[in-house]
């Protein structure tokens, strides 16, 4: 008998060899071209290694070679579900850098657009999460029906369904007509009824509860330490919302609450998003009531909108951040006094929220990895940039 032979007592007959499974980039449940290398023991996950870069399209390099205004349409393509929120963050950063003021009406329009975007994002994310759970397409159909209605508004106001390119430094591109505002009011009025219906379909569904509760629990201290932001963080019970903390734009004028989860599992992440949509509806109602006629862009900034090449912010740096539907979306800009930024960096919530993917998945079954990924809510355009 040589040394390598093991006796029967040493091994548990149920132990199997671990198996490495490649998951993606072409996989219907990875929300794009994300790839995971999962090591499995039986069906239990031992480790998860995310592999990214399949959509790394050099956003930062391209932006460093463009004028400040020309970067705006590129930010649309970062997180292509909520282009308005991306525009918002970039506009804030540049306004901080060049010290541009924004008139009141523009602020209202911005907030309305950002919150509509949040509705679009959350409703679609929930649809996709259910898709991953196996409820194939019905929730997505309902979600996209609502999304289409909001996209019609975006199209009427900005000119494009997805790639709005609507925000400008010091305001927005065009004014919103009263007819459009009326249309938004109509949608906002009907949205809670849709949410009730959506919840009747999903929230108390036993299969959803069994699949989601106690799966992928994220403890709050780990969430903070790993720089998790957005609904994922709040589902773990940490009260941190940049709309409240930074009070950027005019969010301090609106009364809204921040929904928090108590367990931090997939179900909490789902439910926090539902509640956030209800709060967004509240903000929208207040904003639609408060909006007054006025300037939609600062008169000083119209001059450099006609000639983007003449817009040269002073030497310096700025970090502007917004609460995008995915989390903290930050833009770090360094100006060297020329029309192009010297350094342009996007702090993307999708990428950083993925840090804890392995911690959440280990110990669960392989089917749970998919819903955990779905509940973190990644968008590859922003993750890889």
């Amino acid at each position, binding site marked *: 008998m040589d040394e390598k032979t093991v006796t029967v007592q040493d091994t548990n007959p149920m132990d199997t060899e671990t198996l490495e499974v490649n998951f993606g980039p072409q996989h219907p449940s990875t929300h794009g071209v994300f790839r995971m290398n999962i090591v499995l023991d039986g069906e239990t996950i031992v480790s998860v290694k995310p592999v990214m*870069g399949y959509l790394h399209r050099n956003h930062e390099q391209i932006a460093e070679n463009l004028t400040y205004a020309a970067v705006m349409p590129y930010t649309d393509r970062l997180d292509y579900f909520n282009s308005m929120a991306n525009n918002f963050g970039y506009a804030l950063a540049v306004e901080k850098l060049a010290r541009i003021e924004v008139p009141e009406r523009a602020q209202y329009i911005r907030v309305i657009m950002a919150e509509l975007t949040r509705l679009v994002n959350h409703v679609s994310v929930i649809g996709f999460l259910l898709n991953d759970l196996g409820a194939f397409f019905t929730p997505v159909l309902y979600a996209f029906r609502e999304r289409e209605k909001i996209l019609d508004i975006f199209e009427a106001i900005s000119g494009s369904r997805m790639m709005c390119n609507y925000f400008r430094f010091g305001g927005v591109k065009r004014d919103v007509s009263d007819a459009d505002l009326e249309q938004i009011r109509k949608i906002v009025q009907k949205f809670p009824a849709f949410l009730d219906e959506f919840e009747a379909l999903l929230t108390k569904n036993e299969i959803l509860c069994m699949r989601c509760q106690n799966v992928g629990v994220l403890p709050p201290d780990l969430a*903070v*330490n790993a720089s998790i932001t957005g609904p994922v963080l709040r589902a773990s019970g940490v009260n941190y919302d940049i709309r409240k903390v930074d009070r950027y734009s005019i969010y301090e004028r609106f009364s809204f609450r921040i929904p928090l989860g108590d367990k931090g599992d997939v179900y909490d992440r789902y439910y926090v998003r539902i509640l956030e949509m209800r709060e967004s509806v509240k903000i929208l109602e207040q904003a639609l009531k408060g909006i007054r006629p006025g300037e939609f862009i600062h008169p000083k900034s119209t001059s450099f909108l006609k000639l983007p090449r003449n817009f040269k912010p002073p030497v310096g*740096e700025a*970090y502007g951040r917004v609460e995008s539907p995915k989390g903290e979306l*930050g833009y770090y800009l360094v100006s060297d006094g020329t029309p192009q930024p*010297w350094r342009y960096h996007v702090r993307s919530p999708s990428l950083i929220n993925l*840090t804890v993917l392995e911690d959440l998945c280990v110990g669960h079954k392989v089917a749970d990895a998919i819903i955990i990924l779905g509940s973190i809510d990644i968008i590859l355009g922003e993750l890889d940039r």
Partner: protein
Amino acid sequence: MNISEIKSKIESALPGVSVKIVSQSLLVEKPGNLTRVVRYLKDSPEFRMDYLASVTGADYLDYLESVYHLYSMAKKTGPIVLRVRVRRDEPKIPSLARIYRGAEFQEREAYDLFGILYENHPDLRRLFLWEGFEGFPLRKDYLQEDSEILEAEDIQWLEEHGIPIPEDIRKQAHELKQQGLRALAQKPTKESGV
């Protein structure tokens, strides 16, 4: 809190550490001191900077820089911006990934695109590009390839796979190889108006 107050607090709490104010941010003069400063900011009850929002690199031609944005989730304050400068030929900065998990991917990204070596990082590999990619594309001196001119290695690959190669392409690649050049993207001419 004022930026100079933060500076004096850090310097008095950590003897031997010197920080400099650079446009509303704190430059940690010796990269080796970074972990001490960050630990102090994280642990001291006055700051409680428990949330590392953003880590990024930047290329300033003479040196490389790593910029950190710290916030406090507990006290809802911030940001404190820290920066570290290193020489281009020896870009070594201590990693914060063991203090803040959130730095893990961001430092990998900065390594991938700028080539900043984060020492003591648990898993410092390229994040977006593949292993075997040469150069760091966000550095200001990176020149990307000309995507339309085939080079010798392309010709070799095509031959191995039995793909017929037109004679002019083969000739062009051969000439490039003889001159010892690579097909790089040209710098834009002034005329192009960029």
